[in-house]
């Protein structure tokens, strides 16, 4: 069970990042190497000055969805950033920022939370992904 799983995170809303954190955590706990590639709004959410901010929810959440998510958080559900931190401690998870997204959003590597291991281009992403599955979120 050591085939690599690659998660491409594009969306920057808290619900999608939470779903991504769950997939990353599950993969890592099962011993799979997990590569995370951050693009656009997901990358923006990993800025160290706003990683803990409210990033909103996907449009389909609606008011009921927001209430459900808020209730889960109140009941003690870990935030996606906390889940990502727990996963990083476990090892086997590499988080890379997309260099094009860095350019477009005018983000410097020093702006990013320490969860992010580095910056890479799409060719490096594909090399690391190998023949493993790629999931776009």
């Amino acid at each position, binding site marked *: *069970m050591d085939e690599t799983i690659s998660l491409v995170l594009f969306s920057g809303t808290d619900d999608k990042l939470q779903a991504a954190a*769950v997939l990353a*955590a*599950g993969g*890592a*706990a*099962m*011993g799979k190497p997990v590569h995370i590639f951050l693009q656009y709004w997901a990358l923006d959410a990993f800025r160290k000055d706003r990683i803990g901010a409210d990033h909103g929810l996907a449009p389909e959440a609606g008011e009921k969805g927001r209430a459900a998510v808020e209730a*889960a958080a109140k009941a*003690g*559900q*870990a935030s996606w950033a906390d*889940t990502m931190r*727990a*996963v990083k*401690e*476990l090892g086997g998870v590499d988080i890379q920022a997309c260099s094009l997204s860095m350019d477009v959003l005018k983000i410097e590597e020093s702006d990013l939370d320490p969860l992010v291991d580095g910056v890479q281009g799409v060719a490096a992403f594909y090399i690391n992904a190998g023949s493993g599955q790629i999931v776009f979120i």
Partner: protein
Amino acid sequence: MGKSDIKITVDASGLSCPLPIVRTAQAVKTASSGDLIEVIATDPGSVKDFQAWAKATGNELVEQTVADGKYRFVLRLK
């Protein structure tokens, strides 16, 4: 299986998916082959998760019980 045989207890009560298996995977790193690890969880999804986790990691799920809304798993490390 007596309590005394348990090497590590992971209390994942109140934690939602996937934290019970994440905490267990963390605990496994500090244990050795043959050790018994007990996990207490309240997440109903953990039943299938621990079966899958054991299968994927090669560790043996030797016990699985539920009482008072708490799930208890005992795993033997490979």
